[in-house]
């Protein structure tokens, strides 16, 4: 039975990933900040193990990695992320941008590198990070998204570098664009229901090979321009 690890699994895309993989017969390791109130995750049943993880907190990441050490993991989905309200440039203070960088850019790298041995023990060897069209330097023209764009573009950069380094280990690192999905993080505005976006992203993950490592691909299978 293949195993998937999903961060930010208590709601939104993370919950939907957990739901769909569980329904497909996978072992799911679902990480979230507050397992005791993750009722929808718990309702998915015993195939889903829920573990505490606050990706903004370095000791929490260390504890989490210790908790999962040694178990083979086929697919790691670094999904936990934060958004930020639109701002003018003058309002972008460290309090606004540092959490976005820590959660959206650094945490996926910290977790992936900490899970390297788990991925090597698994068969599929795939590390997927949930990025965003906002990370695209050429294709995004929504104003005021300073911290969010910078953090997702930084994620893309870090993931590209990791992909190059992990090629020799046979681990594929891909960046996924979910599309504009109706979740709490987007204020339930968007073109897509979580089911559709996640089904698409799961299809991309399933079809990804080492040749796709370092690519930025949408839920629709299409390449996203950098």
């Amino acid at each position, binding site marked *: 039975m293949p195993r998937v690890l999903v961060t930010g699994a208590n709601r939104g895309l993370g919950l939907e990933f957990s739901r769909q993989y569980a329904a497909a017969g996978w072992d799911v390791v679902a990480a979230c900040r507050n397992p005791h109130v993750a009722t929808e995750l718990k309702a998915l049943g015993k195939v889903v193990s829920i573990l505490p993880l606050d990706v903004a907190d370095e000791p929490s990441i260390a504890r989490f990695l210790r908790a999962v050490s040694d178990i083979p993991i086929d697919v790691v989905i670094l999904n936990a992320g934060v958004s930020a309200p639109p701002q*003018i440039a*003058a309002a972008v203070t460290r309090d606004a941008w540092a959490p976005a960088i820590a959660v959206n850019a650094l945490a996926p790298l910290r977790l992936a590198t900490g899970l390297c041995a788990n991925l090597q023990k698994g068969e599929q060897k795939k590390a997927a990070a949930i990025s965003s069209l906002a990370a695209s330097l050429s294709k995004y023209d929504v104003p005021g998204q300073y911290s969010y764009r910078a953090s997702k*573009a930084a994620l893309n950069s870090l993931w590209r570098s990791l992909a190059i380094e992990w090629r020799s280990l046979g681990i594929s690192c891909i960046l996924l664009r979910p599309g504009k999905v109706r979740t709490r993080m987007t204020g339930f505005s968007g073109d897509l229901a979580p089911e559709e976006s996640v089904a698409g992203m799961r299809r991309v993950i399933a079809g990804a090979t080492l040749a796709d490592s370092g690519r930025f691909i949408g839920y629709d299978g299409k390449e996203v321009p950098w």
Partner: protein
Amino acid sequence: MPTVLISGANRGIGLEFARQYAGEGWQVYATARNPADAADLRALGGRVSIHQLDVANERSIAELVRALAGTAIDVLIANAGISGDLARSPEQIDQKEIIDVMAVNAFGALALAAALHPNIRAGSRKIAIAISSLMASLAMNDFGTQYVYRASKTALNALWTTLALEWRSDAIACVLLRPGLVRTRMNNFDGDLEARESVAGMRRVIAGLSLADTGRFIGYDGKDVPW
């Protein structure tokens, strides 16, 4: 007499920008974290006025703004940048490292520009330049390494293109420049280009910019850099 403000001007690319612009009769506002250490900058003479600035420090930016209140700035060159610990392997990168480097290379450049918005609006050329890097380019990254430095320059690109959107209505062109691999202290004098050649090229690009160029990422050689 046109005016230019250059951050991180005490050495390297910033110093060379100050030298070349002063040589052409521009009024240069040059900033450095430690003006007392900026002997080469002082040697450029009276047209270069030196100001203390640490772009990662909000109070430092606020003091610069006070010192320059009412001064029109035709061209801003957000050049100040740090390499961080280039040798760090990815599993060794922690929040402190990435935030410290982002605070200078990405968000420091943005904060400086935002703080000087009135000065740039009052200028006649209305150009805001950020010194980026080939390392910012995702398309060109086939080598990996230097994780945090690369990410900080990609983040800078994201911030500057967003700034270009915000400042379009003020007719301020926000452009990213790639210096090429220049021999300076920041990269241990290992590179293809002397600072003089790179900066001459970048000044040529700057001289030719209009609002139509806002949001572009251009090399010292005038060529667009792939994102």
